[in-house]
């Protein structure tokens, strides 16, 4: 048994192709946006020449196709262009907020998936009892409530009424973390992250929970589970090692894909909690017509999504020895 590099290679190639197509669509979508991209930045007092200098500076004076080629070439070199607003390299701007988004995502996903998987097992175990119905209703509540709405209520209660947790940002005013690592390991940072990530986790919780429950109910019907029981193994062992271990496979995939989803989907949470992350940056960039930045942030989110899809595929075949490549579509 060796790793099938040919397959991984092909899959990787597909990933790049997908990214390229997304980049292309993005490029044209942003170029076709109504409105002069420089409106917000060209002071009306500028002379025609000054405006032209600016256009030239951003490479907007060239024909569209040529711009596209330049864009692709730059992309290959990891150059996403210059932000109109920040007058800075897009990648650098994005890199400043990306860790925050990743922390938030990661933390809330972990909470959501740990609680979700355990909850799913519990509900499957309670199948047919009252507790199951109550559990499902509660879960569906968390999944149906608009995120920002929950966020606002959570803020109002925990931050402003009870004053337990801070309401915005990644740290108290004027406090600087010495390094990204220092930030990550600081309890203060975690205190700031708790509210937004819990809000996000509440929303994310539903999917793994319900998925896990359904899978559990299904795998509990599998003969190897019944037979494990016949072997006189304890109920806990049967539930965890047999039913849950198999039922968790699609949940793990869902998590990898969910991570990709969440990276783009956290715009709302980041805005409610004034969290300096990718989603907020993207919304700001769109509102301010900073299309190189919007494009860059979008592309990065897409790249993470595509990559996580790729990881999900690989992960699945690692976790489930039965799976073949064709099964993964």
């Amino acid at each position, binding site marked *: 048994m060796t790793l099938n590099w040919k397959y991984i290679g092909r899959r990787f190639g597909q990933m790049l192709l997908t990214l390229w197509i997304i980049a292309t669509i993005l490029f044209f979508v942003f170029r076709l946006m109504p409105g002069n991209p420089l409106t917000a930045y060209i002071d009306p007092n500028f002379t025609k020449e000054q405006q032209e200098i600016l256009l030239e500076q951003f490479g907007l004076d060239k024909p569209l196709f040529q711009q596209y080629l330049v864009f692709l070439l730059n992309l290959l070199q990891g150059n996403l262009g210059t932000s109109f607003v920040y007058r800075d390299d897009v990648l650098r701007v994005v890199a400043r907020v990306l860790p925050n988004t990743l922390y938030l995502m990661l933390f809330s996903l972990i909470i959501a998936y740990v609680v979700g998987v355990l909850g799913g097992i519990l509900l499957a175990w309670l199948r047919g009892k009252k507790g199951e119905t109550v559990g499902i209703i509660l879960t569906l509540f968390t999944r149906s409530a*608009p995120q920002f709405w929950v966020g606002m209520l959570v803020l109002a209660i925990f931050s402003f009424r009870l004053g337990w947790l801070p309401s915005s940002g990644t740290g108290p005013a004027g406090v600087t973390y010495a390094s990204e690592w220092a930030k990550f390991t600081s309890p203060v940072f975690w205190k700031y992250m708790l509210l937004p990530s819990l809000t996000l986790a509440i929303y994310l919780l539903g999917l793994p929970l319900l998925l896990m429950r359904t899978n559990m109910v299904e795998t509990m019907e599998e003969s190897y589970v019944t037979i494990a029981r016949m072997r006189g193994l304890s109920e806990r062992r049967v539930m965890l090692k047999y039913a849950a271990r198999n039922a968790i496979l699609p949940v793990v995939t869902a998590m990898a894909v969910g991570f990709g989803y969440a990276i783009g989907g956290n715009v709302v949470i980041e805005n409610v909690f004034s969290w300096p992350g990718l989603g907020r940056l993207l919304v700001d960039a769109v509102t301010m017509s900073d299309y190189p930045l919007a494009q860059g942030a979008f592309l990065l989110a897409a790249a993470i999504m595509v990559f996580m899809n790729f990881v999900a595929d690989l992960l699945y075949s690692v976790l489930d020895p039965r799976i073949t490549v064709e099964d993964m579509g």
Partner: protein
Amino acid sequence: MIEMTSILEFFRQDKFALVGAIIYILFILVALFAPAIAPYDPQEMVRVDGRIAFNREPEKNFKLGTTNMGRDIFSQLIYGARPALTVGFTAALFVMVVGTVVGLVSGYFGGKVDSLLMRLTDVVFGIPFDPFVIVLVSFLGPSIWNIVLAMALLLWRDTARVIRSQVLSIKKRAFVEAARVSGASHSRIIFSYIMPNILPLSLLYGSLAIGWAILTEAAVSFLGFGDPSSISWGYMLHDAYVSQALSRGAFYWMLPPGICIMLLVMAGFYISRGAEEVLQPKLRSM
């Protein structure tokens, strides 16, 4: 295609689905008869004794109070069912139709068509949804139709994948093979043999999409990209947020639209949950 009796049977058997259906029906009725139920025009700044009634708390004339611009919240809530249902149902329809067609064609014909469509699905899977909606809406202008469009362009992806794998398995089933042996044409096989069997599944995804659409509309509205010309619940929440209903303690403004969204989204989940049990007869026997 699906017998009326079996639908009734389905709702009779699954209490969740029944509750879901009742919620849907209630909201549809509310939407249809909104002008009859709502005491005021939702856009009207209501005057009391010649003065605009701002920020009224719930009282006899204003069952849920008024907004900071003196609009009747109850009336807005009633009218809000319209865009919510419109967005929900049209988006779900698109998601269902596009997803089902792509999945069906891809799974049934296989080969190059399949790989092409699946690559396309990969591409669509690579596009982050919320940002895409925001870009599209800021690009095409804030309108519920553009939100629907964004959903139609992206959200068929899950449906397509699931339908495809379902078609792949149905395609291999003996009765489809039997139809081929009988000489049935592709269209006959698709419409008489495969479609009826995947339709419940696409309906399931459709009902999930209703929830998605409503939540998306709300989120986009919240971020300020919403359609101000139609008073949806998402818009109401946004309005409440911008107008600081929370700081004002106006829970009568902040809560009802959120609860309505939750109920409607949940109704979709309820129905799909019921459908899930029906689609997996293995579970039903227990």
